[in-house]
C-alpha cells in the first residue's frame, strides 16, 4: 500500500518537442487523491500537450511519470485508461449514433458466459449504465441514442464512461466550454462528490470563476514551463493572471486615446442586450465611425462568440442590433456584408483563405460576393486592385496569381485584410488578426488598422494579447465568462484591463 499522503499521479521533468520545437520543458505535476486540481495557462502554454503525454497520445521525450509510486509510460489512450487515468475531452468524444449505454461500454461490452456463445449481455449493460449514471444524479433512458440528449447530458455520459473503468485519476479538458450556468453547477456537484470519494481530478478551464469555485490546488504553465503549484486559496486572481501571462501587469500604458464624441452622433453599430444561449450573455456594445473598440478578455471569455453574433455567423436569441441607427436582423454573413461589415476570422486556415485560389482571387472574393454573381469585376480591375493591395500592405508574394496557400501566415493575413478593405467596409471586425504571425507583420497590420480608423472606418479589434488591445483601441470593452464586465477608455494600462477581468472573479 502506498503512502496516503503521497500524490496519486506525479510527473517530473517531462519534456516534449515537436519537430525540434520544445513544447514542454521539464514540467512537473502532482495530483493528490481527493482533490480537484486546476491546470492553468494561456494558449500555447503546453496544457494540451501535457494532457496528451499523460494520456498516452504522445510519448514524452524525457521525464518520469509515476502512478501510486510506480513508474508508468502509457503508449496509447487505451493503455492509460487501463492504468486508471480517464479523460473527458473538450469536444464530447462519443458516438452520437450509439445508445447511451453503448457509449459508456464501447469496446468492452459485458459478455454472457461461454455456454451462451459469449453473446453481448444487453440487460447487464443497460443496468450497469443506469447504476453508473445514478451515481451522477442522472436518471435517463440509457437505451436511447446519445444524440437525442443535450450536450450537458452527453458530457455527463462521457464522465460516466470515464468512471466506469475504475478510474483513480479523472482528467477534464475544458468540460464546461459548451455548458450554461445551471449545467455547470450540476457538473460541479458531481465533481465535488467524486472528489470526496477520493478521486484525483485534473480540471482544465479558461473560466477563472470556475477555478476558484471548484479547485483546491492550481498548477500554472507558461510557454511550456512550470510556473508554480499553489493552493487555490493562496493564489488570488490577480496573482494567477500574473503567473499565466508572465509579468506583473503593471507594464505598459496604452497609447490609444478616447475618441471625442460628436454631438448627436449615432453609433455605427449598437448592440442592446444581445445574447445567445450558452455562448454570449446579454451584452451592450457600440462602435462609432472612426473608432477602434478593443475586446479584451482571456481565452474563452466570449470575444469570438460576440464577433460571430454581430457578423451573422451565429444568431442571437435576444437583443437588438442597430446599424447606423436602424435595427437589422443579421442572420448570415452575406447580410452582414451587405450592411457594410467585414470579418477577419480567428481561424485563418479554416474560415479565411481559399488556399488553392490565387492571391488576386482571394482578395476580390468578398467584393465580388457583394457585387453579386452577374456583375463580375473586370479582369483588369481585379489585377489593378490586387496589385494595389499587395503594394499597400506589403504582401510578399511572387505575383498576384500565386495560390494564397503558398504564402506565409502573415502575408495570408494581410491578403485577408485586403479582401475586406476592397469592400470598403463601414465596420471591420478583426478577430485575432495578429495571431501566429511575425513581429514585423504584426506591427504593419496594427498600423494599417489605425490608419483605416483614421479614415473613418469603425473597427472592432479582438486579440488575446491585451498589450495590443490597449495600444490600438480608443475604447476597450472587457469580457469575462461570456459577458461584458465593463469598459475602459483608450489609453488605460494593461493592468486596468486585467484588474477588471480579475475583479470579483
Amino acid at each position: 500500500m502506498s503512502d496516503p499522503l503521497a500524490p496519486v499521479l506525479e510527473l517530473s521533468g517531462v519534456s516534449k518537442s515537436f519537430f525540434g520545437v520544445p513544447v514542454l520543458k521539464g514540467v512537473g505535476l502532482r495530483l493528490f487523491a481527493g482533490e480537484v486540481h486546476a491546470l492553468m495557462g494561456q494558449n500555447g502554454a503546453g496544457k494540451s500537450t501535457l494532457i496528451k503525454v499523460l494520456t498516452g497520445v504522445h510519448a514524452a521525450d524525457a521525464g518520469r511519470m509515476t502512478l501510486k509510486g510506480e513508474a508508468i509510460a502509457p503508449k496509447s489512450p487505451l493503455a492509460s485508461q487501463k492504468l486508471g487515468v480517464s479523460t473527458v475531452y473538450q469536444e464530447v468524444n462519443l458516438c452520437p449514433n450509439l445508445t447511451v449505454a453503448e457509449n459508456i461500454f464501447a469496446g468492452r461490452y459485458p459478455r454472457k458466459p461461454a455456454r451462451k456463445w459469449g453473446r453481448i449481455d444487453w440487460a447487464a449493460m443497460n443496468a450497469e449504465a443506469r447504476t453508473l449514471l445514478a451515481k451522477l444524479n442522472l436518471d435517463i433512458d440509457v437505451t436511447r441514442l446519445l444524440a437525442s440528449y443535450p450536450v450537458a447530458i452527453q458530457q455527463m455520459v462521457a464522465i460516466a464512461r470515464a468512471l466506469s473503468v475504475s478510474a483513480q485519476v479523472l482528467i477534464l479538458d475544458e468540460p464546461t466550454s459548451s455548458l450554461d450556468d445551471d449545467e455547470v453547477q450540476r457538473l460541479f456537484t458531481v465533481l465535488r462528490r467524486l472528489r470526496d470519494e477520493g478521486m484525483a481530478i485534473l480540471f482544465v478551464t479558461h473560466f477563472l470563476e470556475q477555478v476558484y469555485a471548484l479547485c483546491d490546488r492550481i498548477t500554472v504553465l507558461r510557454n511550456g514551463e512550470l510556473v508554480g503549484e499553489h493552493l487555490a486559496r493562496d493564489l488570488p486572481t490577480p496573482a494567477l493572471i500574473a503567473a499565466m501571462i508572465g509579468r506583473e501587469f503593471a507594464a505598459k500604458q496604452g497609447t490609444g486615446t478616447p475618441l471625442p464624441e460628436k454631438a448627436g452622433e449615432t453609433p455605427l453599430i449598437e448592440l442592446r442586450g444581445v445574447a445567445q444561449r450558452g455562448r454570449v450573455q446579454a451584452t451592450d456594445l457600440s462602435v462609432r465611425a472612426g473608432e477602434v473598440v478593443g475586446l479584451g478578455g482571456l481565452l474563452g471569455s466570449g470575444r469570438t462568440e460576440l464577433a460571430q453574433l454581430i457578423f451573422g455567423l451565429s444568431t442571437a436569441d435576444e437583443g437588438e442590433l442597430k446599424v447606423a441607427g436602424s435595427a437589422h436582423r443579421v442572420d448570415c454573413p452575406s447580410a452582414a456584408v451587405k450592411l457594410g461589415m467585414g470579418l477577419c476570422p480567428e481561424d485563418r486556415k479554416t474560415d479565411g483563405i481559399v488556399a488553392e485560389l490565387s492571391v488576386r482571387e482571394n482578395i476580390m472574393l468578398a467584393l465580388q460576393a457583394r457585387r453579386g454573381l452577374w456583375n463580375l469585376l473586370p479582369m483588369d480591375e481585379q489585377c489593378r486592385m490586387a496589385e494595389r493591395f499587395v503594394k499597400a500592405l506589403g504582401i510578399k508574394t511572387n505575383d498576384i496569381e500565386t495560390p494564397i496557400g503558398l504564402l506565409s501566415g502573415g502575408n495570408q493575413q494581410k491578403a485577408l485584410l485586403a479582401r475586406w478593405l476592397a469592400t470598403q467596409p463601414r465596420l471591420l471586425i478583426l478577430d485575432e488578426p495578429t495571431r501566429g504571425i511575425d513581429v514585423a507583420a504584426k506591427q504593419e497590420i496594427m498600423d494599417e488598422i489605425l490608419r483605416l480608423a483614421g479614415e473613418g472606418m469603425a473597427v472592432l479589434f479582438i486579440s488575446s494579447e491585451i498589450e495590443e488591445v490597449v495600444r490600438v483601441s480608443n475604447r476597450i470593452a472587457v469580457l469575462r465568462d461570456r459577458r461584458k464586465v465593463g469598459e475602459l477608455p483608450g489609453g488605460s494600462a494593461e493592468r486596468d484591463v486585467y484588474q477588471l477581468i480579475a475583479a470579483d472573479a
Partner: protein
Amino acid sequence: MNNKLMHTLTRHPLLWPVVTLALLLAINAAFNATFLHLEWRDGHLYGSLVDILKSAAPLMLVSLGMTLVIATRGIDISVGAVVAISAAIAAWMIGGSLVVHDGVATHVSRFPMPVAILGALLVALVCGLWNGLLVSVVGMQPIIATLILMVAGRGIAQLITGGQIITIYYGPYFFIGNGYLFGLPFALFIAAAVFVALLLLTKRTALGLFIQAVGINPSAAYVAGLPARRIMFWVYAFCGVCAGVAGLVVSSNVKSADGNNAGMLMELDAILAVTLGGTALTGGRFSLAGSVIGALIIQTLTYAIYSLGVPPEVNLVVKAGVVFVVMLMQSAEFRGMVATHVRRAAA
C-alpha cells in the same frame, strides 16, 4: 521563347487528357485501317470519328453538368436515372404515329414536340432541384442524397413507360439524336452549345470563382459572404437539366425509351470523364474542356473495344484495366515514382 512555350505546354492541365485521347485514337487507327477515313455521304460526314463524336454527345452533356457539381465538392449519382426519366417523359409525350390521310403521310404526336421537349426538361429540372434541396438545404451528404433519386428514378421512369419500352414513331423528333447540321451530328451542336454557354457563364460571371471557392473551402466562402448554399442548390439543378438534355438525345437516337436501361451506369462514366479531364473529386479547380475530352476518351475506348473484337463478356474488364492505366498515367505522384525508379536504374 521556345522553352517557355514548352514549359507552358508540359504544365498545361489538359496535356494528359489530350495525350490519352490521341493515344487511343492512334491505337484504333493502327488496328483499323479505315478508322480515320472520312467521307461525304448522304449529305453529311461519315466515318468512325463522326460516330464517336455523335455517340459521345450524351455523355459530354452529363459530364458538363457533373463537372460543376464535383467542383463544389459534391457528386451526383442520379444522372443516369434522370436520363431515363427525361427519355421516358419525352417518349410518352411524343408517342406519335404515321397517319396516312387521303394518301398524304403525316407525322402525328400526342403533344406538340416543343411541349414534349420542354416537359421532359422541366421534369429533369425538378429532379435536379430535388437533389439540390437535399444537399444544400437539408444538408445531406451528396452521395446519399443523389443515391435516393438514383434508385427511385429508375422506378419513376418505369412507371412512366408502364414497364414497357416506349417506341417513338414521330419522325421530326429523330433529328435531335440522328440528324445532321452542316454535315455534323446535330447532337454535337447541342453539346457544344451547352459547353459554350457554361464556359461563358463560368468565365464572364463570378460563377466560376464562386463554385471554386465553395468547393475548396466552403466555410471561408460563407464567411466572405458568398451565397454558398444557393450556389450548390443551382449547380445540382443545372446538372439535372444537363442529364435531361442527354435523355432527349438518347431517346431520339434509339427512337424509344427504356426506363430500365436508358442511361444505365452513365453516372459512373460521367464521373470518370470528369476525373479523366483533370477535375479532382476533392472539388475546387475544374476544367469543362477536360470533361469533354474525358467523355471522348471513354467513347473512343468503348469504340476500340468493340472494333477490336474484344469478346463482350470481358469488355468491362478491359475497360476497367485501361481506365486504371490512364489514371496512373495522369497521376503526378505515380509519374514521379516511375521517374525516380528509372533514374535509379540508370545510375
